């Protein structure tokens, strides 16, 4: 083992890990950042701008997709799904899924934090700092439970989204409680240090070629490297957690691309592998002192799993027929957000709530409406017409947390390092179905109020119609004050292993309808700073 002892070792360079490493390095700590995947080069390893047919053969022969997306590098065959078709998104590369995320950056609200052991007021300063670092754009809307932030100028709604907005405004005059607002995303719509200004090509999720979109790889990690306190280990897969004794981590063992094995020693370890993977790592690292997995005498590691889920309803608006073609790219599909549903007055039929991401426009490279009957001139005309006149409404509901939804280890299947794969158990319940039925009814109302008609809808909901968001899992090492019912404390520090911290969204004890990443980043920043302070005070040895 190398003789250097880092102050902190952060495993995982996604949204949480990247910012935790930055916070620690900025505070003067010597940090090792360990990432299983390689560094990818925008424009070379992923490029969404070239004409597709021109590059087709070369891209396909390299095993890549025709559109040469960064998600070509996503993991496959890396987990076992159980039940209602759970997915598990993972991208092992420097930056993780901040490379392919859509950038949606929403603060959780004061009502959401009621079920947390920390308050909105404690997290708010970190939200502000995160929004400024990430260059988040948005409009200040003054809503009850979606706080405004430090915003760059927002991005305009398209025609289809304006239709939905009119429907919502009309329903509000009839007493319905809902709001239609512009999205808030981490793209530099104005000059921002270290970033190129967005040129609205709409290929955000294919990988931002110019680094207008915030990723861990283009912002916090380079800044951390500038401090001189960060040592980066890429293509380094953690394969063991090394313990000094039952309550102290000593370091990690990792396997390199050439198969060689080495180790990193550290005073503190931060796991930021994302909810499914972090839980998996803790469960794998069973020892005599930790028979249920590391830091798991509560039995809560892998439990309290939740994500977002939903269905899509599409409307078409005759008012848009024959409109001049326009550049609809923007910042990828969803420019609008239907929200404000059941915040202060919960729906009697289900717990929790949902929001609806709204998009529209003609995006031939990823055409929204393709499932049109028939063939010939009518099919051709309808493909163009329906897509020009449509608006899509994608539900994001908070999945009901229960004993039936959890992560454990597959007893039979192992990865190439002989480590058990994670198993993700998902079974939709009555609450989930009731919530989705409400969304379908609400979407129907909004579309019709705007003078449109519903083009496609799932209708009466059954579990088989629901779609999970494979990238929004949270909750598997939940935060709490009681070590008997939680894994980490208010500083995301493991109750049982004081020099082990969690720097990703595994710690969320409850989940609202809002996208997780801004909160993940705010918390990981806070965790990094609090860890740095503990190291300075010598609390962790």
């Amino acid at each position, binding site marked *: 083992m190398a003789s250097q002892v880092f102050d902190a070792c952060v495993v995982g360079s996604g949204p949480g890990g990247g910012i935790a490493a930055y916070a620690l390095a900025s505070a003067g700590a010597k940090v090792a950042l360990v990432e299983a995947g390689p560094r990818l080069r925008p424009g070379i390893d992923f490029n969404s*701008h070239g004409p597709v*047919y021109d590059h087709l*053969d070369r891209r396909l022969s390299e095993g890549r997709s025709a559109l040469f997306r960064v998600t070509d590098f996503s993991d496959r065959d890396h987990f076992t799904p159980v039940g209602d078709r759970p997915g598990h998104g993972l991208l092992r590369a420097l930056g993780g899924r901040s490379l392919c995320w859509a950038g949606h950056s929403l603060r959780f609200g004061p009502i959401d934090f009621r079920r947390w052991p920390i308050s909105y007021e404690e997290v708010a300063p970190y939200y502000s700092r995160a929004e400024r670092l990430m260059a988040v754009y948005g409009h200040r809307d003054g809503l009850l439970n979606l706080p405004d932030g430090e915003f760059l100028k927002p991005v305009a709604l398209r025609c289809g989204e304006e239709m939905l907005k*009119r429907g919502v405004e009309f329903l509000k005059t009839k007493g319905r409680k809902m709001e239609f607002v512009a999205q808030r995303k981490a793209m530099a719509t104005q000059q921002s240090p270290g970033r190129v200004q967005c040129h609205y090509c709409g290929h955000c999720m294919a990988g931002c070629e110019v680094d207008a979109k915030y990723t861990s790889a283009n912002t916090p990690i380079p800044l951390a490297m500038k401090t001189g306190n960060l040592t980066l280990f890429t293509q380094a897969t953690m394969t063991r957690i090394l313990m000094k004794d039952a309550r102290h981590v000593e370091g990690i063992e990792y396997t390199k691309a050439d198969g060689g094995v080495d180790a990193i020693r550290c005073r503190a370890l931060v796991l930021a592998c994302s909810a499914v993977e972090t839980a998996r790592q803790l469960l794998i690292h069973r020892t005599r002192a930790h028979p249920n997995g590391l830091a798991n005498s509560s039995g809560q590691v892998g439990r309290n799993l939740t994500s977002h889920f939903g269905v899509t309803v599409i409307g078409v608006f005759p008012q848009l027929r024959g409109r001049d*073609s326009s550049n609809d790219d923007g910042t990828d599909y969803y420019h609008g957000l239907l929200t404000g549903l059941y915040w202060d007055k919960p729906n009697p039929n289900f717990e929790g709530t949902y929001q609806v991401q709204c998009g529209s426009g003609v995006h031939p490279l990823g055409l929204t409406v393709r499932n049109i009957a028939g063939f*010939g001139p009518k099919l051709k005309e309808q493909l163009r017409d329906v897509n020009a006149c449509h608006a899509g409404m994608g539900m994001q509901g908070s999945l009901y947390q229960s004993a039936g939804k959890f992560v454990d280890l597959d007893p039979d299947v192992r990865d190439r390092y002989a480590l058990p794969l994670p198993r993700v158990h998902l079974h939709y319940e009555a609450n989930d179905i009731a919530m989705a039925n409400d969304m379908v009814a609400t979407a129907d109302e909004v579309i019709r109020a705007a003078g449109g008609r519903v083009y496609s809808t799932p209708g009466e909901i059954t579990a088989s119609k629901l779609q999970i968001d494979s990238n929004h899992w949270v909750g598997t090492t939940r935060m709490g004050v009681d070590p008997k019912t939680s894994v980490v404390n208010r500083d995301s520090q493991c109750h049982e292993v004081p020099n082990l911290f969690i720097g990703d969204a595994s710690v969320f004890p409850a989940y609202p309808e809002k996208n997780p990443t801004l909160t993940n980043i705010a918390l990981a920043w806070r965790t990094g700073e609090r860890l740095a302070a503990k190291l300075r005070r010598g609390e962790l040895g």
Partner: protein
Amino acid sequence: MATSLAAECGICQHQGAVQQRASIASYKPRVFTDGEYQLLDLLCEAILPADAESGGAHDAGVAFYLDTVVFHSGQAVQELWRRGLAEIDRVTHERFRRRFADLDDATRSQMLSELLVNERSPATSLEQFVVRLKAATIDGYCLSEVGLKYFGYKGNTTLTEFPGCTHPEHKAKL
């Protein structure tokens, strides 16, 4: 940097388009025989035909796209496509005593209509293949230069400002 990227993109697009048209015209299929490739091209064109306004699947080079994608998709997929095309020719011959390529336009439409009659719930392997062929034709058309032009696609370029909806009547109160 965004400005020079714009210039780069502009030049790249233009050169790419010229190369693409040349290579599609002279393309020799790698999976399909000449007869299968011709059938594929005719089927795609029947699904998304040329009209007064724009080219269809043939002009777009969708057959080139499909042969290339299938070529890179492994043996099982290649066999599935070749079997599917052979089956289409077989049932066409049973129905009309001719190969698909030898039918007139109206009869080709009739045949395709019968092949797609259960497209909402395809049961047989032939019905499933035809649905797959139709979906792949749409995909290929959307990614082509001809298709992008048909959709009036003004995107995949650089803007300093995103205009969004520019129609005051879309924002008026109901």
